[in-house]
């Protein structure tokens, strides 16, 4: 699609929020610190939410169990990073990254594999019935959490940042945490890969077309179920990656962490427009920034702020910022 065909108004939301927050925060260094933290949180949420929004868009499946892949990815990372103590304990940032990247890869593989089984045994029997989807996927998440407790124990497990990713860079008086910059870089890389896949490959075209009109995709001779399974597995793997990043962001993991993040993810995909990847990115950045700004300005309303954000967006655009055409 040509740039002049893109609706630009939603793209202005994030810069508008940044500008509105600056005078409210009052101090540029503090604003910069909060902004980088918000962008990092937003990018992690985007990585988790991108798969879920495509799953809903393609097959109209409400997967409330998505959170279990977040927790699974994070717990797998504790095991992998724990086994690579020499690398994670080193002061050399490259050795740290050589431990973090394999942990991410293994977490994605495990989450993707469990996602394949989740789709086959939990989601597939309830196609076309939203109520059953909500109930059974929530049930699946509870079972998943219990299995995580069986394997890793019920207690909180620390997931400390390797030394090379700890600390901050200082820009004037502003402290910018290294890990948050790392999270933004990974998030941008994931978004670029997703955008390239969706716009430049035939599989991407099929996904975008399937989100709009899956019957027509079938009528052209493509099995959309296979496509959906692929997207579900990829979405689960991305949730696993997001879980590793969220765990490192929080520096600890608990089996219930997926359920805690689930609410934010659904706010994001509703703001973005169900099925829209670009919408999910905008929604995630807004949610991440809003959480950090309100956490600083008015901590008592921080929890409520993202719900208020969603309500405000839906009053403006009832189907989200980028509603998928034909749905």
């Amino acid at each position, binding site marked *: *699609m*040509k740039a002049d*065909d893109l609706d630009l108004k939603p793209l202005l939301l994030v810069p508008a929020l940044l500008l509105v927050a600056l005078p409210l925060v009052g101090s540029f260094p503090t604003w910069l610190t909060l902004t980088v933290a918000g962008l990092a949180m937003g990018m992690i949420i985007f990585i988790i939410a991108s798969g879920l929004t495509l799953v809903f868009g393609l097959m109209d499946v409400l997967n409330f169990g998505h959170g279990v892949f977040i927790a699974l990815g994070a717990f797998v990372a504790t095991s992998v990073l724990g086994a690579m103590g020499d690398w994670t304990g080193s002061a050399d940032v490259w050795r740290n990254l050589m431990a973090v990247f394999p942990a991410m890869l293994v977490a994605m593989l495990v989450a993707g594999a469990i996602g394949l089984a989740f789709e086959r045994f939990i989601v597939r029997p309830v196609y076309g019935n939203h109520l059953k989807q909500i109930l059974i996927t929530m049930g699946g998440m509870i079972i998943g959490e219990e299995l995580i407790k069986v394997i890793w124990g019920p207690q909180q497990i620390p997931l400390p940042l390797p030394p090379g990713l700890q600390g901050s860079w200082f820009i004037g008086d502003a402290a910018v945490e290294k890990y948050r910059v790392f999270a933004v870089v990974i998030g941008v890389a994931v978004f670029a890969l997703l955008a390239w896949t969706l716009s430049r*490959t*035939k599989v991407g*075209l*099929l996904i*975008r*077309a399937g989100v*709009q*009109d899956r*019957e*027509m*995709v*079938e*009528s*052209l*001779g*493509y*099995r*959309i179920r296979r496509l959906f399974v692929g997207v579900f597995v990829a979405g689960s793997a991305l949730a696993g990656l997001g879980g590793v990043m969220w765990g490192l962001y929080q520096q600890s993991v608990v089996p219930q962490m997926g359920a805690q993040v689930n609410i934010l993810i659904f706010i994001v995909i509703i703001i973005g427009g169900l099925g829209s990847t670009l919408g999910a990115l905008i929604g995630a950045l807004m949610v991440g920034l809003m959480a950090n700004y309100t956490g600083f300005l008015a901590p008592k309303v921080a929890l409520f702020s993202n719900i208020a954000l969603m309500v405000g967006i839906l009053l403006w655009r009832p189907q989200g910022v980028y509603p*998928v*055409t*034909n749905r």
Partner: protein
Amino acid sequence: MNTANMLLTLEGVHTHIGAYHILHGVDLQVPRGQLTMLLGRNGAGKTTTLRTIMGLWQADSGRVRFNGQDIQRLHTAQIAKLGIAYVPENMGIFADLTVKENMVLAARAARTAAQMDDARLKWIFRLFPAVEKFWNHPAGKLSGGQKQMLAVARAIIEPRELLIVDEPSKGLAPSIINNMIDAFQELKSKGVTILLVEQNLSFAKRLGDTVAVMDDGRVVHAGSMQALAEDVQLQQSLLGLSL
């Protein structure tokens, strides 16, 4: 009619949609290389018949055969791969994709526009100049007539034995309808078998070789288009109109 010459046959097809019994034993024959019109009043079951052929709604009983093969239990994608192209009433255009991307999707053998059959693409551009003119535009921004041209162009970007189109003239300007008629006649001259659902009777008369008229979920008349066009009494009894 000679059954061996039939590309598509439906025998006693019953289809339910939820609790509603829509098709009550449809018998339909589509001769190879001809253009068959499926006529009938609103709610007669024409669209349901097309969707049942494509496997989008499953027939409960009866038989659907294409090229002699029973396709009733096949998946929609498998039916399409046998050589049936389908253009639904809403045209099924992917509005958020460009015209080019719509065409690349329909060309199953091509991964990119550059891999599409160049000669066939040029032929399509000649049949439907709007497809070439708006090649890089979002399909959702085309007019109704341009969307219909894109929908048919997409259906024929690869050789298909049977082209099924649901109400191709619906809501189109007369000049666009003439363009569509020319396109269908050229397709027919190339040996493509066509099954059209239509409400526009003059369109049907100008194009149809054979006709089937549906009422209340059944085919109540089948024969040549010319015979129906010449029999005003029959038209009025079947359709409440005259051609």
